[in-house]
């Protein structure tokens, strides 16, 4: 079809009858999905629809109650953790760390971390690498974490609400950084409820509702089929 999905033979992420329950109520209920390589995919749904749970299962931080989830054909283990670059919703970097220490930390943990690329992006933003994280603004901290995560040469990037809580200019920076940094044989899964900001960046989207996928489509197929933006479609599907 085009240059961005040539190596699409093994799906990057597969879920078969994937179910996750905390106690008796399932958070994800018999989810089936296949995400090929070379795509930017939106995981869209209201709060509590299971977005973060699905991402944590793919990252190997949770185990399925039943069914399976596969990253590049493998159940999550230490090998797939090397293939997955995960940006959690909440930071795990200590506010007392210096910027340069976050670089050391990523270089130690991840063999695929491209330090030169990260340093280059940080210097273009004017981030001084000797300062401690607590002195950075919220927007700058979000950008820094995204730079760290996108500077890995991973196969699957899991970005949980990467643009929540930052101003529009920081959002634009974050979206441009995602577009210019993912490799054509990798896939980016972005969870968000800020759909209008993000829909042009996506190849396709998944609507999650009550732990199940209610719609999966490319953005332009949905626009041509329903005659509305994905943002408007979301409001329609999730109308209270």
């Amino acid at each position, binding site marked *: 079809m*085009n*240059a*961005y*999905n040539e190596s699409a033979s093994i799906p990057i992420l597969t879920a078969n009858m994937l179910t996750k329950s905390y106690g008796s109520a399932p958070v994800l209920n018999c989810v089936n999905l296949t995400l090929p390589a*070379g*795509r*930017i995919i939106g995981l869209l749904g209201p709060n509590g629809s299971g977005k973060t749970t699905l991402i944590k299962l793919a990252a190997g931080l949770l185990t399925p109650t039943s069914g399976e989830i596969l990253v590049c054909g493998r159940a999550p283990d230490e090998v797939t953790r090397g293939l997955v670059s995960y940006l959690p919703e909440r930071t795990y970097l200590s506010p007392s760390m210096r910027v340069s220490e976050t670089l050391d930390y990523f270089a130690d943990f991840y063999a695929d971390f491209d330090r030169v690329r990260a340093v280059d992006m940080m210097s273009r933003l004017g981030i001084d690498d000797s300062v401690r994280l607590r002195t950075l603004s919220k927007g700058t901290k979000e950008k820094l974490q995204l730079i760290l995560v996108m500077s890995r040469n991973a196969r699957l990037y899991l970005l949980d609400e990467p643009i929540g809580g930052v101003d529009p200019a920081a959002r*634009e920076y974050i*979206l*441009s950084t995602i*577009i*210019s940094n993912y490799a054509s044989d990798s896939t980016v899964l972005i969870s968000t409820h800020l759909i209008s900001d993000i829909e*042009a*960046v*996506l*190849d396709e989207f998944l609507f999650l509702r009550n732990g199940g996928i209610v719609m999966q489509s490319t*953005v*332009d197929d949905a*626009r*041509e089929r329903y*005659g*509305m*933006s994905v943002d*408007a479609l979301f409001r329609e599907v999730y109308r209270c």
Partner: protein
Amino acid sequence: MDWHIDGSEALYLQLAADLRHAIICGALAAGSRIPSVRELASDARVNPNTMQRALSELEREGLVITHGTSGKFVTDESGALDGARQRELLSLALDFKSRAEALGFTVGEAAEYVLRHAAAERTEQI
């Protein structure tokens, strides 16, 4: 480049319209090299596959050509550029006609008004 992305129309069609406009107006000059898909996508903050699709649309129209591995270029054939300019004028004219008619004027009355208005402006300038 200026990108206008909104509404309900397919994104690749909106991107193709912006690129076509840039080519016709010379913002992307005839015969010049077009930036890579990734650069254009990052500039417009759109998906690279969607940008690729928009460029394919312009290739189909003959406005964009691929020179082997050296990338994509704006065509330097005046025929293709003139054709695109004519098609843009046609769609502008059809839009003008339907809007004038929606206001209760014939297209002739509306056109005459435009000409008179333009003449008045010219006189003022002198």
